[in-house]
């Protein structure tokens, strides 16, 4: 019993670390650009498919990682520049951007279905093999995932707090007019934030794919989970996303283990509802 629980915890922590990256991307985009990217899950899947393609070309793990970054960067940048930016001038930009990103999401998901077919694709793990600690078996790959994910989070947080660009992003998120006043090029910041979120979600996809495969249908699950974590942690707070991701990753693992997989999605929804009713600003958020 305890053994099972520990394994469940490990699974939850592993997933949680990757969820943190993806939630960070979402909280950034929403906080900075005020646009909700419904196609976020589809970007996730895109990252997975590119990874699968590159592995098919016999790239090694590091090369795949390095190749995914500029591709996802371009994907995010183009999406913002060509699809979302034209809408900003209009008064009804908010509803239009929601419609267009959802349309994009469904377009991409269908595109994957058409190009890659409905069957899942698998990606090789970074490391094979297991480690025995105190009688518990932990896969080395899981350890690698947590390590890489946390490293990415640390780099991200350093970028946001120390670099000029990171500071500019936070400025735009906190007071858009103030950012304009100071001479920050808002449009460029919007585009780069989108690009950054695409990279983050692509990285997340690469980390999770070996365990959970790449499928055309997985996108919206990721979208909902990322958003619930974002809301639970507090919109605009990276720290919040970090905490929330681990907590909810563990909760998901426990619910899945106890009640079965079909109930996990419902559990996420319950958490969302609970947060919105009891504490809409989330753990570390500053506004609802």
């Amino acid at each position, binding site marked *: 019993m305890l053994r099972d629980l520990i394994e469940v915890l490990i699974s939850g922590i592993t997933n949680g670390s990757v969820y943190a990256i993806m939630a960070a991307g979402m909280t950034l985009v929403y906080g900075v650009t005020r646009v909700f990217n419904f196609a976020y899950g589809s970007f996730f899947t895109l990252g997975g498919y590119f990874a699968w393609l590159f592995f098919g070309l016999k790239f090694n793990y590091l090369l795949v990682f390095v190749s995914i970054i500029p591709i996802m960067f371009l994907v995010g940048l183009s999406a913002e520049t060509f699809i979302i930016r034209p809408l900003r001038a209009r008064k009804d930009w908010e509803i239009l951007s929601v419609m267009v990103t959802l349309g994009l999401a469904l377009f991409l998901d269908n595109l994957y279905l058409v190009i890659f077919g409905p069957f899942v694709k698998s990606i090789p793990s970074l490391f094979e093999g297991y480690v025995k600690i105190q009688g518990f078996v932990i896969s080395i790959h899981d350890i690698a995932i947590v390590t890489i994910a946390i490293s990415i989070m640390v780099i991200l947080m350093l970028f946001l707090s120390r670099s000029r660009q990171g*500071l500019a992003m936070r400025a735009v998120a906190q007071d858009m007019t*103030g*950012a304009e006043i*100071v*001479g920050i090029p808002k449009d460029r910041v919007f585009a780069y934030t989108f690009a950054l979120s695409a990279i983050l979600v692509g990285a997340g996809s690469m980390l999770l794919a070996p365990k959970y495969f790449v499928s055309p249908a997985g996108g919206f699950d990721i979208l909902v989970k990322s958003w619930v974590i974002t809301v639970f942690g507090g919109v605009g707070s990276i720290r919040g996303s970090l905490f929330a991701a681990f907590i909810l990753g563990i909760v998901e693992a426990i619910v899945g283990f106890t009640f079965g997989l079909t109930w996990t999605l419902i559990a996420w929804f319950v958490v969302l509802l609970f947060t919105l009713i009891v504490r809409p600003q989330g753990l570390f958020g*500053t506004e609802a």
Partner: protein
Amino acid sequence: MLRVEKLDTFYEEFQVLRKVSISINEQELVVLFGPNGHGKSTLLKTICGLLTPVSGSIKYNDVEITKLTTKNIVEMGITYVAEERNLFPQLTVLENLKLGAYNVNARQKEEENLAYVFELFPKLKDRTKQSASTLSGGEARMLAMGRGLMSNAEFLAIDEPSLGLAPNLRIEVLNQISEINQRGVSILLVEQSSPKALDIADRIYLMEEGEIAFQGNKEEALNGNYFKEAFLGM
């Protein structure tokens, strides 16, 4: 230095500025008076690129800046200090100031300007690590002004810096603005009503209902009945 001609700006369908024309010469401190809601802030925002006029022209050193983005306008040397301040609430005082120096021209002078800002506003120096949302009203105004100075601007458009402050603080703020002007920065200052503001001004404009109702210097203002009655209530 700055010449505004026949500016028309709208807010949705409502015309806020009607054929407004003003000018500020080098190193002048020009004060714009007028009742609330009559377009003073709109004028400043239009000059600084936050709003786009429907017609008219704005020239800075004979260069047309009417349709430029705020980023470009800031790089040309014009900075806006908003009435709402628009500080970054979760960033520290120091981070706010550093962001003030975001534009390319200001980056080299960052150290120098920072020292000047701390000299002018010693209270800010004590609070560098505090987040901007925890500042008092007066300190927030100082931060907004300081951030504006960090941009290395030659021309500052300052909107109601003394609003909501206690009378002695108000005088202090206006003195500081005068000092900044003495240092060589041209200033367009918007103020509601204040004999002190009248005092530090080189020239004055009075704006009513989106139009310039009066322009002149101190003597003309004090001698002319219109201004006195309409405004200072004398």
